[in-house]
């Protein structure tokens, strides 16, 4: 168990490309941290600098409060699980797991014991004599994890370990990793581009974009209060809907509320404490609303207080069983508006829907993409 501290960590490649621009993070003991972001956001680079496979250009990396910048990967007491497993093809499963221990001159009987323990934990006991080639994808994945476990390291690093598996196996292995991590209580850093994986696995989540940390927090905190438009669009599936909006002066609206005008003509009342946003009055803002937070109104039911009404036309329906996704057209909006409906709610294409946005569910982002804090 270990804490992991990153202080102004920067990475610049010899060709001048800056992959990481000053990362500050603090991971607690036994936490499972997921780093998520689109391709090229620097998440793999970050993981590789943690592992010691890439040099740190600037800043400090501490494991348990000890600076490890200049230590070789093997000396950092970490273990890594790679995307393509990176098993030694000419070695048996047993030797694959034992190799790291042998290099550390662990006594033979201890190797034997640790490997059999790990094999048992992962259900690999029967396969110890096989070569990686003779294993299925899921089994290889387990061996790769076994190789990490037997070392009993301070930190586990996972580099998109599930992306080579098929969808069903991925869900299964995801649960297994989670269970294993909770059981072994080893601080883990897990990199993925899959936001579902990120949400389900993480104790805390780091969303990265272009070498910066966009937000760091629990999955639900990121879901409920995304710090930026980028995080809002990345976390949650299907992605959040974004609508252009203009904030109108409170005095022009109803009483003390500021109102948000949408291009389609709808208006959304905002709460009084949103006066901090004086500076953005009359500027173009972005209103974000998640597909699951758009409420469908029956034709004759009244609009809830403070809510804005959107009249949309259904273009496409995707029934998923439990839910139905409706892609709708909204006047003045090029992107379709996605609405998540109850699976029992029957909608037909070309049908008109009345949707309501409640202020509490709306997210507001400034022109720079940052969240305007007091929107809810």
């Amino acid at each position, binding site marked *: 168990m270990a804490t992991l501290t990153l202080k102004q960590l920067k990475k610049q490649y010899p060709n001048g490309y800056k992959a990481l621009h000053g990362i500050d993070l603090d991971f607690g003991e036994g936490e499972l941290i997921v780093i998520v972001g689109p391709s090229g956001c620097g998440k793999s680079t970050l993981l590789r600098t943690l592992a010691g*496979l890439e040099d740190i250009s600037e800043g400090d990396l501490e494991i348990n409060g000890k600076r490890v910048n200049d230590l*070789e990967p*093997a000396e950092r007491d970490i273990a890594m699980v790679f995307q*393509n497993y*990176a098993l*030694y093809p*000419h070695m048996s499963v047993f030797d694959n797991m034992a*190799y790291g221990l042998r*290099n550390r001159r662990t006594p033979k009987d201890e190797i034997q014991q640790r490997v059999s323990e790990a094999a048992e934990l992962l259900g690999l006991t029967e396969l110890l004599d096989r070569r990686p080639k003779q294993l299925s994808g899921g089994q290889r994945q387990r061996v790769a994890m076994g*190789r990490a476990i037997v070392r009993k390291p301070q930190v586990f690093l996972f580099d998109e370990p599930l992306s080579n598996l098929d969808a069903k196996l991925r869900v299964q292995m995801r649960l297994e990793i989670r269970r294993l991590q909770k059981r072994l209580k080893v601080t883990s850093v897990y990199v993925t581009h899959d936001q579902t994986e990120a949400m389900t696995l993480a104790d805390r989540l780091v969303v990265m974009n272009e070498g910066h940390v966009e937000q760091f927090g629990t999955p639900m905190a990121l879901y409920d209060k995304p710090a930026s438009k980028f995080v809002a669009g990345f976390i949650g599936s299907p992605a959040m809907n974004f609508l252009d909006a203009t904030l109108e002066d409170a005095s022009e609206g109803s009483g003390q509320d500021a109102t948000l005008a949408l291009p389609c003509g709808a208006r959304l009342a905002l709460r009084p404490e949103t006066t901090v946003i004086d500076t953005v009055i009359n500027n173009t803002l972005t209103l974000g609303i998640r597909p699951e937070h758009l409420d469908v109104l029956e034709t004759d039911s009244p609009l809830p207080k403070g809510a804005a009404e959107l009249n949309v036309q259904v273009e496409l329906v995707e029934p998923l069983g439990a839910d139905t996704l409706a892609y709708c057209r909204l006047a003045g909006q090029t992107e379709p508006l996605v609405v998540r409906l109850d699976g029992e709610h029957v909608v037909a294409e070309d049908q008109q829907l009345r949707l309501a946005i409640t202020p509490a569910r709306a997210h507001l982002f400034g022109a720079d993409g940052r969240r305007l804090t007091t929107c809810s």
Partner: protein
Amino acid sequence: MRYNRPGLDIASHLLLIVGCALFFLPVWIAFSASTHEMGDLYSNVAPVWIGEAGLDNYRHLLEDPVSSLGADVMTLLFNSMIMALGIALGKIIISVLAAYAIVFFEFRFRKLCFWLIFITLMLPVEVRILPTFKVVADLNMLDSYAGLILPLIASATATFLLRQFYMTIPAELVEAARIDGAGPWRFLKDILLPLSKTNIAALFVIMFIYGWNQYLWPLLITTDADYLTIVVSLKRMLTTGDGLVPWQDVTATTLLAMGPPVLVILFMQRYFIKGLVDSEK
């Protein structure tokens, strides 16, 4: 490929049989000639069947020094074996290390090193034979095994082939080994060498035959009969001045010279073909 056409089957077998005969016939004629007395070869048409001398010529060649050479064929085979093994093993050791350095390590002038090795591919031994001779002579290595082996011990071809193979090894495998605490030597020994086993076997066969068949270089630097190689001696046995060429001895020596390469191929065949066709990854 398999086509369901009986005619094609017959035709292809015929072609194969003709091909085999074409290759086998000269060997057979050499063999049958080697089993005759010298007189038979000069008084008769070329013999097609085994003669009365049987294997006497062979025994005689292996045990007694050949008059035109001053050494028995056993010594010649031994010398050739030392040279071929030395060249093959030396080339493999050097190429493995060179390719390892070029592929897995980052150092200044890495590209330059590679290209320097690569362009020597295009230079045959003959081009640099005079300076090489001078160097070997200055080092007092004329008429020695070292002189036979050392100048031929570096191989651009082998380095290049191994480099190509090493480049197909996923970077993650290297990194996994690094995290597992394997230093450069251990990575080479535990992971790279076992993985390139088949490639090395194939290279060994090719390089062994290359070394065994060396003619010009051993011819140049050996004058002492103790360091004669078998391929060089073959030619020397044909130049007998005024006497008759002892064809029975020449053909027997030829067949003996063919032996070790054939054995090496048979022995390494399994790896050899695997190494040329696929790579186990």
